[in-house]
């Protein structure tokens, strides 16, 4: 990807422009947004950036599949994703591809635009954290405070505009006034009774930088099979319980939420809805990829495995939504979580068994 860059435009009236250096940097083409109804803004914006770099977002974000939980994290942002200490978000989302994704924060509010412009000049599309309350294209505009992510593909201080892409419905892809953008990126995102899950977390000028390795290439069936086997090995790692990962970690998590509901621990139950979004999104994307590749490669077993993985995603709905509606009074949820947990674990086992069967057809 190339960017255009014009730090000075002599034909413009200097008095009108003022003396301060103004930024003008934008991607050479407008990004095409990528979205699925099961994903959050995290997957949707990263996928949009990957597509802009010429990569297949579904493959990069969908090849890996795992379970991982960090019990001490507060997941109250739509884009929450648990990352182990010393690990990288890109590696967690795409363990079989070379993808580096890191969080940064603007060094100062008045440096935000120039720092984003500099990334654009490097050929990167930063993903900015925002408070939807300040964005005229979001349904929450002047209504609800809620943290969200959008892709930045241009900074134009001559027109006081930032070019942004928002893949989430209703969707937006175009210019936004600097004033609104800076209000959204510097918002304190105060507590909002309309949003118990994604408000009350300061935005603080944070942004993600996605650096895909230029050598990312489509996996062959055999490489894909190896990646799926690595997923299975991780799911079946008996050490997972201690690290809240894999099937053992999932079992521990399901036991923990059942216990939290039974003892009336509202705050633990409140975390289920935002934490579960990423888990649900990952299963939906992985399942879709398996189905798609199964069709392309004429491997019916892979289509079936993909559908079974998608079922896992869909079973997370019941857990997330019942938690969202009842977190204030969770004591009635214990039995329901126990039942849903058994059902979910069985669905994971079936998906993994079918995946194992499909791997044999890929070698």
């Amino acid at each position, binding site marked *: 990807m190339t960017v255009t860059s014009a730090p000075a435009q002599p034909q413009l009236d200097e008095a009108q422009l003022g003396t301060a250096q103004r930024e003008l940097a934008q991607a050479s083409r407008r990004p095409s947004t990528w979205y699925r109804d*099961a994903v959050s803004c995290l997957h949707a914006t990263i996928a949009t950036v990957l597509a802009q770099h010429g990569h297949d977002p579904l493959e990069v974000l969908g090849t890996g599949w795992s379970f991982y939980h960090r019990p001490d994290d507060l997941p109250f942002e739509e884009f929450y994703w648990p990352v182990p200490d010393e690990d990288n978000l890109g590696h967690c989302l795409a363990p079989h591809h070379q993808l580096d994704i890191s969080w940064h924060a603007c060094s100062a509010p008045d440096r935000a635009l120039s720092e984003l412009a500099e990334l654009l000049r490097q050929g990167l599309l930063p993903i900015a954290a925002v408070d939807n309350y300040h964005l005229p294209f979001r349904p929450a505009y002047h209504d609800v405070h809620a943290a969200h992510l959008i892709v930045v593909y241009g900074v134009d201080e001559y027109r006081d505009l930032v070019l942004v892409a928002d893949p989430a419905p209703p969707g937006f892809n175009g210019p936004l006034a600097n004033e609104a953008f800076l209000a959204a990126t510097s918002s304190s995102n105060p507590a909002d009774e309309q*949003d118990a899950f994604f408000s009350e977390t300061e935005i603080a000028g944070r942004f993600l930088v996605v650096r895909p390795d230029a050598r990312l290439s489509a996996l062959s069936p055999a490489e894909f099979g190896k990646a799926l086997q690595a997923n299975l090995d991780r799911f079946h790692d008996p050490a997972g319980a201690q690290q809240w990962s894999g099937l053992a970690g999932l079992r521990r998590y399901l036991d923990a939420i059942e216990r939290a509901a039974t003892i009336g621990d509202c705050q633990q139950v409140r975390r289920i809805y935002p934490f579960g979004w990423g888990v649900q999104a990952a299963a939906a994307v992985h399942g879709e990829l398996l189905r798609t590749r199964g069709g392309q490669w004429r491997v019916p077993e892979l289509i079936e495995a993909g559908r079974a993985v998608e079922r896992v995603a*869909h079973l997370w709905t*019941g857990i997330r939504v019942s938690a969202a509606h009842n977190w204030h009074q969770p004591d009635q949820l214990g039995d329901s979580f126990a039942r849903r947990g058994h059902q979910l674990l069985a669905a994971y086992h079936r998906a993994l068994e079918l995946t194992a069967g499909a791997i044999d057809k890929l070698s």
Partner: protein
Amino acid sequence: MPSDVLTQARRLRLVDLAAQLNNVAITPAEQRKSGACNVWGNSFSAAQMPDQPTITVAGIEFRTWHLRDAEPDNIRCAGQLIELPAGHYDWIHLIATGERRVEDELCLHFADHSADFEAVRVSDFWAAPAMFGETPALRSEAMHYPFHVQFGLAATAWHQRVPVTRRAALTGLRLPDNPALHVFALSLQPSPER
């Protein structure tokens, strides 16, 4: 109305759900705070709903309730048992929607005290495509929020169907205990006469 619809409509049994309705998913703009199709209080726009209680979707006739006001218009599923007009049926047709994609089970009860679990699959109502091959049944091009009306954001309820494989008289239907699933209407398609 095409003749095949008329033929089908005569044979379908439209189930009376009025006593079970417990949730408001459709609101007039001035009563949008009553909406509860999801945890955010979103709802369909009543102004964009059919103005007749009996609607036909893909040749299947349904009885609906309160599509144009802020009274309960659907059953939010909590394990309710619905009594059905006893009969031999091939298909249970539903107008339903999901607060996110839903896969769950219905339990079908029969006159001979047998019972079968059958999968029910319903797509998300919030700006989402049909994931399970359903047909759109109710569609609002505007989404109601508690404090505003959002244009350009569609809400959809889907026509989905569930098979009745057992050749016995169906008498009842247990809905799943799943607050993400909303059922607006239910019609039974009889088996061909033997």
